[in-house]
C-alpha cells in the first residue's frame, strides 16, 4: 500500500481507499502480517499500522508495549510535555449529535472577553502552564477570524507555545495567525467513515471534504505542528484510525517541516446522552496507542484528562509525549471553577504539580517549556 506518488491532495489518496475495501483488508490480516509489522518498527507504512490495530494483533499486546516504550524513550528521552486547554467559548453553529456544545442543547452560551481571558491566563500561569491549547466551538467564518485574531493576540505574549483546536479555517487565516505566533493547530476529522453525514447534519461541519483538506491548508500555511485524530466511538476505531495513519503518512512526506501530533479522544457521556455505537475498551485503546508509536516513532502522542488516573499513570510511560493536567473544559472554568458548562467530563482532576510527582515516580520529567515564542514570528529579528 504505497502512497501513489504525484497525488495533489489527500482527497485523491482518500478516494483510493474505500471504507468497505479496508474492512475486507482488515478481516484478512494474519499473524504473519502482525509479526512483519513488529519486525520493522518505524516503517511509516499504513498497511503495517492496519495489522497492528487488527484483532489479530491483540495477543501481541505485551510485545507491542515493550517495543513502544523503547522507541519512545529513544526518540523523546525521559520527558513528557505539559499543556492545558484554554476554552474561550461554548457558542457553536453546529449540531454534532455527540457534543456537549451542540447548538441543539439549551445552555448558557459564553464567549470570553479580554478581561475574562486574562483571568484565565493568570490561573494557568500560576499552575505553571507554558503551553496552551485554545479551544472554541464553531463560529461563522468571519466571526472566527475576528475573534481568534484578537484572542491569540491577548494570549500569545503570556505563553511559550500557543496552539488551537477550533473549526477548520482558510489557509490565509492560518497564515495570519501563525505570523502572530500561533504554534500549532489540532483539527480532528471525527470520523473518516460513511457515517460522517449522520453525525454532522447541520452547519459548516457538514462539509466533510473542507475538513479533510484542513491539514493540507495548514501545511501550506507553514504551521509548526498539526494534530490529527478521530473521535473514538463514532465508527469502527480500527478503520477510522487507519485513515489517520494514512493521512499522517501523506502529510509527513509533503509537509516535511511540520510536526505531527495524534490524539485519541474517546467518547464520554455528554449532555445529550449520546451513547457511542462503537465504544472502545481500555485494552483496545492501549493497542491503538502502541500501534501509532510502532508505526512512526516520531509522532507526538497526546493523552488528555478524558482518561482516568489509573489509565494515564500506566499508559504515559509506554508511548505518550504530551499530557494535559488540571484541565477545565468550560469557558472561564479556571477562574470560576464553580460554574459547570463543560464540553466533556474530566476523569483526571490532578494538577500539573501532582502529575509532575506521578511522572517522577516513573523516572520521567514533566517539561513545561519547550519552545521559544519568538521562533516562527513573521519577522523574528524585530521581536
Amino acid at each position, binding site marked *: 500500500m504505497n502512497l501513489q506518488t504525484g497525488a495533489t491532495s489527500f482527497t485523491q489518496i482518500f478516494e483510493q481507499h474505500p471504507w468497505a475495501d479496508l474492512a475486507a483488508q482488515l478481516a484478512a490480516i494474519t499473524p504473519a502480517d502482525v509479526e512483519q509489522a513488529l519486525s520493522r518498527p518505524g516503517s511509516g507504512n499504513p498497511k503495517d499500522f492496519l495489522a497492528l490495530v487488527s484483532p489479530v494483533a491483540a495477543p501481541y499486546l505485551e510485545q507491542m508495549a515493550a517495543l513502544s516504550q523503547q522507541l519512545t524513550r529513544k526518540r523523546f*528521552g*525521559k520527558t513528557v510535555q505539559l499543556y492545558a486547554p484554554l476554552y474561550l467559548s461554548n457558542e457553536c453553529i453546529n449540531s454534532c449529535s455527540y457534543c456537549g456544545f451542540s447548538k441543539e442543547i439549551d445552555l448558557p452560551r459564553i464567549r470570553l472577553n479580554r478581561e475574562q481571558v486574562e483571568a484565565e491566563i493568570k490561573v494557568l500561569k500560576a499552575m505553571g502552564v507554558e503551553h496552551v491549547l485554545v479551544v472554541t466551538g464553531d463560529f461563522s467564518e468571519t466571526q472566527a477570524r475576528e475573534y481568534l485574531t484578537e484572542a491569540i493576540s491577548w494570549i500569545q505574549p503570556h505563553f*511559550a507555545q500557543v496552539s488551537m483546536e477550533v473549526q477548520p479555517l482558510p489557509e490565509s487565516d492560518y497564515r495570519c495567525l501563525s505570523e502572530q505566533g500561533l504554534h500549532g493547530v489540532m483539527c480532528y476529522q471525527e470520523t473518516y467513515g460513511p457515517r460522517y453525514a449522520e453525525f454532522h447534519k447541520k452547519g459548516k461541519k457538514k462539509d466533510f471534504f473542507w475538513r479533510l483538506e484542513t491539514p493540507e491548508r495548514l501545511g501550506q500555511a507553514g504551521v509548526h505542528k498539526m494534530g490529527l485524530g478521530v473521535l473514538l466511538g463514532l465508527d469502527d476505531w480500527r478503520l477510522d484510525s487507519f485513515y489517520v495513519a494514512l493521512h499522517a503518512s501523506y502529510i*509527513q512526506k509533503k509537509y516535511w517541516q511540520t510536526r505531527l501530533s495524534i490524539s485519541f479522544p474517546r467518547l464520554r457521556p455528554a449532555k445529550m446522552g449520546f451513547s457511542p455505537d462503537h465504544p472502545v475498551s481500555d485494552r483496545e485503546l492501549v493497542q491503538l496507542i502502541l500501534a501509532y508509536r510502532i508505526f512512526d516513532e516520531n509522532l507526538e502522542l497526546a493523552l488528555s484528562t478524558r482518561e482516568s488516573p489509573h489509565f494515564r499513570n500506566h499508559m504515559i510511560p509506554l508511548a505518550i509525549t504530551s499530557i494535559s493536567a488540571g484541565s477545565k473544559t468550560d469557558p472561564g472554568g479556571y477562574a470560576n471553577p464553580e460554574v459547570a458548562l463543560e464540553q466533556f467530563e474530566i476523569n483526571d482532576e490532578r494538577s500539573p504539580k501532582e502529575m509532575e510527582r506521578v511522572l517522577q515516580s516513573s523516572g520521567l520529567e514533566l517539561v513545561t*517549556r519547550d*519552545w521559544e515564542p*519568538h*521562533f516562527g514570528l513573521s519577522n*523574528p*529579528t524585530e521581536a
Partner: protein
Amino acid sequence: MNDLLTIAGKTFESRLFLGTGKFGSNQLMAQAIAASGSELVTLALKRFDPENRSDIMVSQVSQPGVNLLPNTSGVRTAAEAVLAAKLAQQSLETNWVKLEIHPDPRYLLPDHQETLKATEELAKLGFVVLPYINADPVFCKALESAGAAAVMPLGAPIGSNQGLSSATMLEIIIRESNLPVVVDAGIGTPSQAAQAMEMGADAVLVNTAIAVAEDPAQMALAFKLAVQAGRIGYQAKLGAVKNVAEASSPLTSFLED
C-alpha cells in the same frame, strides 16, 4: 595532563561535551554532568525562560567548571537562529552558540544553506559559532571561511545511537580541517565515542546515550573514560591495519637466490 583542546582561545581539559535534553529529571542531569567531567554543556534556548534568571534548568546545569553552550534547536531559518543566539547571549551572558538549524522535525538534519548564512552573520557580530552539520568536508571549508570556531559534523542522525555511520566523510573532515572537529549526534555507546577519538576527532558531544541510560551518571563516567582512552590511543599512533598476513617465507625471497 597537557593535552588541551582549544576553541576560540578557550582551553578545555575534557574532550566530552554533553547535551542536556531527554533526562528524566534535572537532578539526574546534574549528576551526569558531574560524572562526565565535561566542561562544555549545551542547553536548548527553548527549554528555559530567558527572562527568568532563576530558571531551574539553567541553575542545575550551572556547575563549577562547566561552561554553557546555548543551542538554537527549534529554529528553521538563519534569521531565527540569529535571534536565538542574541536571546541566549542576553540571558546566559555568553557569546558562544551551538548553531542548530534543522527544519525537519523528524530526523533533525541540518539545513546547510541557512547554517552558512547564520554562521557568517553571527561571526560578524562577534559570536563564537559552533555549527551542527552533516559530515560534508567541502561544507566544513565553507564554514571555516564564514568564521566558524569549530565544526560539529554528525556521526549519524540525532538520537539514533547508530554510531559513526558517516565515518568515511568524518575521516576526510578531520584530515583537512583547520578548525577543531567535534563529532556530534548519533554516538550511542562509549566504544563509538572512543572510535571517534581514535580517528582523531578533537572532541565528541553526547546526549541521548547518557540521558536515556538506566543509570545516566555511570554512563557519563563510561563515556568520560572512553573519550580519554580513544584520545590516548590516537596520540599513541595506532599501528597500521594490515589486510594480509606477512608470509614467514617472503614471496620475493627468490631474488636472494
